[in-house]
């Protein structure tokens, strides 16, 4: 009951501050930009010119899998940044402005407060991401070749888990610190640390969350879901849940004290 009230209050806020319009648009633009640009690369090079007489540029053939992966790599950079920016104030901002106290003096459980806000933001992010990937799929089919609908659905399902983790990390730090800037810094720091750990130990850490996209590429190329992808998904979902629970415990201790 209370859970749904907070969830709906968040949804209303996303309508009022236009999040439901601009976040999906940003994800669509991110998703379709790279496939379109690489399709027109030969024409762009021709028109811009500046190449010496007789120079020839070999542009490698882009297959549908590569084109779809381009969208994912844009998501993993700018999509993740957008998610962090719109989420960093989720709880930190309300604690700073005092809204959190207003809600929590009522008999609202801390777990209800955190999980409903987390779920609301997740709804916004995942909806935008799914719309974006559908747009990318449309262009990839048009320009580069066929990707099966089932493969798209699998890609959406598995890559979405990465966004779940990123969002949960941001919410975690948002529970810890009052300043949005600190939340931003520690979230990006954590992601960079995970990225470098994965880069160094990628041959051992086949189930590390960062390996999701390379497993997804393998899935798109072979047409079957590799075992490592299930393992990675399990780790990603598991660590998100643990982070959320730890965030709740720390938040409760902080607020009660």
């Amino acid at each position, binding site marked *: 009951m209370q859970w749904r009230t907070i969830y709906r209050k968040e949804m209303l806020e996303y309508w009022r501050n*236009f*999040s439901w319009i*601009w976040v999906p648009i*940003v994800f669509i*633009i991110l998703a*379709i930009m790279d496939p379109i640009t690489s399709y027109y690369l030969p024409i762009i090079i021709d028109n811009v010119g500046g190449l010496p007489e007789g120079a020839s540029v070999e542009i490698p053939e882009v297959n549908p899998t590569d084109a779809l992966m381009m969208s994912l790599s844009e998501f993993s950079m700018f999509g993740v940044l*957008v998610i962090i920016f*719109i989420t960093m104030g989720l709880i930190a*901002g309300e604690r700073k402005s005092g809204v959190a106290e207003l809600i929590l003096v009522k008999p609202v459980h801390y777990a209800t407060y955190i999980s409903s806000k987390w779920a609301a933001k997740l709804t916004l992010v995942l909806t935008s991401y799914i719309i974006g990937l559908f747009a990318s799929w449309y262009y990839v089919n048009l320009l580069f070749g066929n990707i099966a609908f089932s493969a798209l659905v699998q890609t959406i399902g598995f890559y979405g888990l990465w966004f779940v983790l990123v969002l949960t990390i941001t919410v975690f730090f948002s529970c810890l610190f009052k300043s949005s800037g600190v939340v931003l810094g520690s979230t990006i720091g954590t992601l960079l640390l995970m990225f470098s750990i994965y880069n160094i130990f990628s041959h051992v850490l086949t189930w590390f969350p960062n390996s999701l996209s390379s497993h997804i590429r393998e899935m798109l190329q072979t047409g079957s879901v590799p075992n490592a992808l299930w393992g990675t998904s399990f780790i990603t979902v598991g660590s998100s849940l643990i982070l959320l629970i730890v965030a709740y415990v720390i938040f409760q201790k902080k607020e009660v004290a």
Partner: protein
Amino acid sequence: MNVFSLLAPLIILEAVLAIVALIAWFKTDETNGPRWLWLVIILLIQIIGPILFFIFGRRQQ
């Protein structure tokens, strides 16, 4: 397929983004930093301008 019909959705999305940012700008009384500067950013910088305004431009509460 001709170039225009492929790029039309992109151009429309860009325009919608800018228009929504303008509406949000009109409705916001207090912005972070000078108000007129945000108008310039929204109108002159493609795609990035409106996004920057949505993320940083508006003051919370």
